[in-house]
């Protein structure tokens, strides 16, 4: 037990904490749940109660938005303590069936949605696209994301990217059926062993391609590959960075009007965690006829939609307003016709809220690639 305790304290640098409260102060979910991440950092110093802490339901309320880590003045990552506690449950096989199923599905099929690997490329069956071959040179290797490939509502995101890249004359290829979950949510659910395996396998697979850079569509994949795959031998970018570049270099022209007032919702995994703030705005600002407005809580102060951190598989027990509801109400107050997102999870949570709030007449949630699809001519 002694060594295990030391590893928990050391792993999360718990002794570095000065209990200033910036983590809990900034935590977006405190308005609707009992989660107090600072308390977990403090209480975890006691070796005997780690199990007890792991059994507190609020450890599953964390959305892994990382506000606590970004704000910490001592460089700690408080959310990782919660993930470490989740890990204790995962190791003991004591997690909700939904979580268990998602993790098993990643292990068996390479995606958390319980879909067959063989169906991973169904979204592209009407498209003429290139599948990368090991060793063959390719400028841009596209990593699509499990959520986008299987969700019929989201597949258009990837399909539009193909249209755009073809139109801009970009050299790109997909990974095909071998594309395997980036592990972002696996890590956030606490399955460290499976995550390490995915990192190893994906690093080997991706390095086998002779790619200059990898373009991710989901900010969750972006963060995972950019920050958690130290041996990956290629640059990792988010598609907004690539498309922004194409627009700047005039390789892509947006010719059709989208006469809407658009407000952009910064995904935590893109903005707060990786400081990609300007590119999505640059793209939206270039859409003819569109008027770009801003949330008061934008960029570094953006409000989390509660879509990450495994929340797709664990419901928060709270009667208080969802953050995604708050977000769409704010968008409505700005009289935005489009709530633009750059993340599949944001799209799902916010879209649910638009429906729940009955705003479907006035506004819609759209991924930037969906809007771009309307702004280009084939």
């Amino acid at each position, binding site marked *: 037990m002694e060594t295990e305790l030391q590893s928990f304290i050391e792993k999360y640098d718990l002794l570095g904490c000065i209990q200033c409260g910036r983590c809990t102060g900034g935590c977006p979910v*405190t308005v609707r749940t009992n989660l107090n991440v600072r308390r977990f950092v403090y209480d975890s110093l006691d070796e005997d109660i780690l199990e007890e802490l792991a059994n507190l339901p609020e450890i599953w309320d964390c959305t892994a938005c990382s506000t606590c880590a970004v704000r910490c*003045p001592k460089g700690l990552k408080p959310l990782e303590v919660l993930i470490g506690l989740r890990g204790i449950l995962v190791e003991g096989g004591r997690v909700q069936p939904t979580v268990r199923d998602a993790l098993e599905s990643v292990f068996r099929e390479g995606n958390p949605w319980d879909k067959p690997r063989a169906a991973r490329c169904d979204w592209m069956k009407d498209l003429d696209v290139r599948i990368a071959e090991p060793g063959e040179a390719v400028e841009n290797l596209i990593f699509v994301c499990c959520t986008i490939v299987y969700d019929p509502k989201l597949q258009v995101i990837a399909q539009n990217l193909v249209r755009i890249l073809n139109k801009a004359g970009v050299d790109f290829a997909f990974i095909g059926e071998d594309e395997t979950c980036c592990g972002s949510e696996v890590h956030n659910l606490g399955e460290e062993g499976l995550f390490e395996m995915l990192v190893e396998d994906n690093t080997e697979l991706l390095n086998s391609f002779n790619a200059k850079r990898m373009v991710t569509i989901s900010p969750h994949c972006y963060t995972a590959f950019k920050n958690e795959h130290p041996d990956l031998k290629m640059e990792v970018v988010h598609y907004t960075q690539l498309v922004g570049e194409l627009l700047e270099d005039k390789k892509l022209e947006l010719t059709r009007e989208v006469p809407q007032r658009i407000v952009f919702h910064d995904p935590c995994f893109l903005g707060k965690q990786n400081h990609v703030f300007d590119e999505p705005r640059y793209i939206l600002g270039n859409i003819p006829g569109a008027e770009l407005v801003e949330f008061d809580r934008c960029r570094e*102060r953006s409000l989390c939609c509660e879509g990450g951190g495994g929340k797709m598989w664990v419901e928060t027990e709270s009667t208080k307003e969802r953050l995604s509801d708050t977000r769409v109400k704010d968008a409505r107050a700005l009289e935005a016709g489009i709530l633009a997102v750059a993340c599949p999870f944001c799209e799902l949570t916010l879209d649910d809220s638009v429906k729940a709030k009955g705003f479907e007449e006035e506004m819609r949630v759209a991924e930037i690639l969906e809007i771009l699809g309307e702004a280009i001519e084939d």
Partner: protein
Amino acid sequence: MNSKPKIGVYICHCGINVAKTVDVDEVTEFSSQLPYVKLARNYSYMCSDPGQNLIKDDIANEGLNRVVVASCSPRMHEPTFRKTLIEAGINPFFLEMANIREHCSWVHQDKEEATEKAKKLVAASVSKARLLEPLEEKEVEVEPASLVIGGGIAGIQAALDIANAGFKVYMVEKTPSIGGKMAQLDKTFPTLDCSACILTPKMVDVDAHPNIELLTYSQVEEISGYVGNFDVKVRKKARYVDMEKCTGCGLCAEECRLADRIPSEFDAGVGKRSGIYLPFPQAVPAKFTIDPERCLFLTRGKCGKSPKCVDVCTAEAIDFEQKDEFVEFKVGAVIVATGYDVFDASRKPEYGYDNYDNVLTGLEMERLVSASGPTGGSIALGEGEEAYVPKDIAFIKCVGSRDESVGNEYCSRVCCMYTAKLAHLVKEKIPEANVRIYYMDVRAFGKGFEEFYDRVRREGIRYIRGNPSEIFKRNGRLVVKVEDTLTATPLEDEVDLVVLAVGLEPRKDSREIIDLLRLSQSGDRFYLEAHPKLAPVDTATDGVFVAGCAQGPKDIPDSVAQAKGAASSALGLLASGRVKVEAQVSVVDEATCRGCAYCVEICPYGAIEMVNVNRMGHEVQVAQVNEVLCKGCGACVAGCFSGSIQQRSFKDRQILPQIAVLGVLR
């Protein structure tokens, strides 16, 4: 003179610092057997008087002519033992030290191995000691004047102390007036003295002092030379106003077409100034300056039909033809008192400083509460009909301090108290206000600080323990997102005004002084003192001293105290009139030097120049070391292609045997 070496070896226990890990008796016994060693002893503290007396007695009685002390780093006690040798009547450079503390006992645990290593270190030193040569320490005269860079409270105090002692002072200040940050403060903590009232008399003293030459709106361009003899070149920037003619009447600023349109630096941007301006009413000198980056005439070549300042100035002081001037002079000592920058709150975007007009920095609040400030001391926000008096006011501490996320790990030392002071002033002006201070620790370490903290709490200032994470807006009001960590309650407090207690940072232009004077920086990027405890105002460059916040965040009393310390150190140099220079310098062998001048390029002190010599009837160029400038760093020795440069006490034939004994060379 260089008679047969008779070496005495002295092993120091350093209490248990050495003796705990190194078997000193065994090292002593081993040393006594080494060639040329006449005797070896060990003692608990060699640096103590009895320890030094051991050496002196042995020199007198045993005829020792070389001494090896095996103890701490030579950085600690080489000067001590050199003095011992002088007192015993032998050349101080016949001393060699073996560092068996920092290089051995402190970094090892195994006593047996450490003892073996200590033996090797001593043997190596012994092998060098017998090859040492006597050296002579030269002295140079000291120019009886000093340069003070920076005209804030630290520079002012240092300048006055030196000038009052009868020595000339050149004070160089970058901005149009001296006074620095202290002039911007309303009251000072914890005594609530009016900052300007205690500062301005000193500013006037500087201006009026016969021994002080004040160069404002000026910048040091070049400094060359060495301790006691620095050559300084200063650029006096063009003010476009004739200092002799300007009466300081201020008509020009009133009439300026840009009047009240340029953010005033003095008012931290809260107030506005003109294109021609006096930074603040009590500025010294009380002369106006034209801002060359804003002035319409200077930037566009046109200002209406004719510039209004020219029209109204009856003294005819405006001179758009004025050019920068250069002043050159010589000083013996330099004091760096360049101060600090306040932390740029934009670097903590989560606090919305760039987004909201009612999120202010401490310095902005300082100007807002000041009776001499742009609002005359009334804390009203908003403009015209929208103006309102804030009721709920929040202070956030540690903004940009103790925060790795912005690269500032240090505590800024003044924010706890200036926050308490500002909160007190706010409560005084708006008694019904609900004033709260969000904090993570209260550091009230100075004289009268804790008492002041007690006082403001009892005045009704709420201290809430939690460092806010975010500020956003809801229904037109600011929301402070924070946790009350004492009750573990996450809060979203709505307030009318947020004051960010921004910390202190090294100046953005601190590189300029580093390049001019070869200063070093500590981990916090402030200028590094020579020793944190025992040489707090000295720097690694002899004759250059540091004072005030340039060395690290500090409050006014500490800045003044350090300034007085720096002044007294500079005075020690100026008053003695002479200074010893390094004896262990480099020497060039003219016979083999091939004149490539690579050493000239390498030397960080500009101590080497090329000279013409006659070599067997041919005029050739060779390198020559200016022994006064040379610091003995050895870079030229290592760089010389022909091996023609040797450093005294570190000649190849002295150090190669030493290295060989260590087993590195054969």
